[in-house]
């Protein structure tokens, strides 16, 4: 947590950092409330990182900041993706550079059918999976393609949200509680999919309350508490270290 003192603003270290996605001391605000309070971590290409923490720890806010949404507003810090300065971009530019966020409340667009929701993801380049391939993975969506997206069941909506990310050619997938509301069978299904995705070289950050499931999947884990990083290490370690789990995750 001492980077601040050693950092030389003139020549950014992060810019030349070997890591694929680097988040350096980001500080973000909702209006005047200071929520993300200097979060830093790095991810290598193709890695899965679990971002954990209690309710209100700032996980969602961190992901939103990385995806460059307007709220919370990034006031300090840098985010580099494959030598691209994400912190200077807007959400749509970040998306064009390969970031995809699956938001926690799914954000299926009202008024559009399932298929339109997917097509919408393929309007701006780069385009990823074809619709057929997506329907192969989620046959449920194929059956419901003409239904209005928001009338899907909760779990179906979650599938659609993930599918929408895959419809784009992405480098980094930010998943905010992807298992929420999914039946155990589907959770297993998606975990497999995430492995498939990893095999394709896509880097993933996963936020999940089902910490065990996430840790099993992940290579590394970062734990947040009240907007700051309190742990950064191997996922395996967390799984094994009872005390650590108890302290930060209460499990």
């Amino acid at each position: 947590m001492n980077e601040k003192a050693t950092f030389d603003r003139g020549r950014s270290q992060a810019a030349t950092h070997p890591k694929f996605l680097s988040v350096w001391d980001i500080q973000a605000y909702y209006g005047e409330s200071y929520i993300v309070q200097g979060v830093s971590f790095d991810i290598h290409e193709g890695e899965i990182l679990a971002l954990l923490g209690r309710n209100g720890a700032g996980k969602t806010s961190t992901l939103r900041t990385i995806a460059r949404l307007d709220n919370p507003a990034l006031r300090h810090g840098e985010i580099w993706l494959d030598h691209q300065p994400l912190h200077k971009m807007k959400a749509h530019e970040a998306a064009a550079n390969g970031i995809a966020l699956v938001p926690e409340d799914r954000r299926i667009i009202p008024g559009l059918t399932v298929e339109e929701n997917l097509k919408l993801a393929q309007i701006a380049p780069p385009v990823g999976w074809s619709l057929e391939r997506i329907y192969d993975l989620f046959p449920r969506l194929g059956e419901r393609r003409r239904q209005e997206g928001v009338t899907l069941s909760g779990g179906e909506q979650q599938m659609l949200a993930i599918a929408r990310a895959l419809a784009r050619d992405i480098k980094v997938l930010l998943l905010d509680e992807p298992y929420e509301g999914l039946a155990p069978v589907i959770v297993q299904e998606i975990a497999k999919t995430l492995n498939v995705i990893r095999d394709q070289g896509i880097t993933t950050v996963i936020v999940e309350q089902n910490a065990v499931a996430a840790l099993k999947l992940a290579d590394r884990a970062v734990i947040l508490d009240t907007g700051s990083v309190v742990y950064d290490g191997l996922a395996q370690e967390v799984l094994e270290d009872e005390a650590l789990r108890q302290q930060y995750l209460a499990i």
Partner: protein
Amino acid sequence: MGILEVKGVNKRFGGLQALGDVNLSVKQNTVHAIIGPNGAGKSTLLNCLVGKLMPDSGSVMFDGQSVLGRKPHEINQMGISRVFQTPEIFADLSVLENVMIPCFARRDGAFRLHAYETVGSERDIRGQAEHMLEDVNMADKRHMHAGSLSRGDKRRLEMAMCLVQEPKLLLLDEPTAGMARADTNNTIDLLKEIKAKRDITMCIIEHDMHVVFSLAERITVLAQGTPLVEETPENIKGHPKVREAYLGEAQV
């Protein structure tokens, strides 16, 4: 004869049979879980119970009275409260006010023009609400704007809003989804505690098997709009059909 009797309920959305001939009987003072794959029709069933949807056919009796055709607020006044799958709260109000409103609803009924008293003078109501917030561990957030709560907190708040009404039947649609494990456990304890303290029937939809098996006394498994089995938790765990359709390799 259960407190809630659902008989032959059907609901179609266009070509989709969302509910097909659902029969369900929930006994008074039990916790009844409804589980099933995504899109099985669980939420749709709850929607038919609280007046959000009108079934195409069938009957729904609560406490000996039909709920069909009644407005949502009338159904609530009969004693049915519901926690939604995506949190429905008063985002522009403070957390405390969010909990006070159901208190008023319980005390004053569906409408009362109390335009001249001040909120500040309603000490009872305020007391109840604060008490409830303490129960769900949110007392320190009571002056926060409900809209700026994190998602897990929104769920807890919504649950507090339903619990404070002391309903006869509480419908919970994935109450712990997105909740941290610690809080999930707290919630389980809270529900148990409430159950122990007074008469309440609960109907809970969950995908978190830990929650289901900690609470439920009976479980109905719904698949493609029809009840597959209705059993005790022990029997569900090993049920092959349920494993195949729903649980997969999950450990329970």
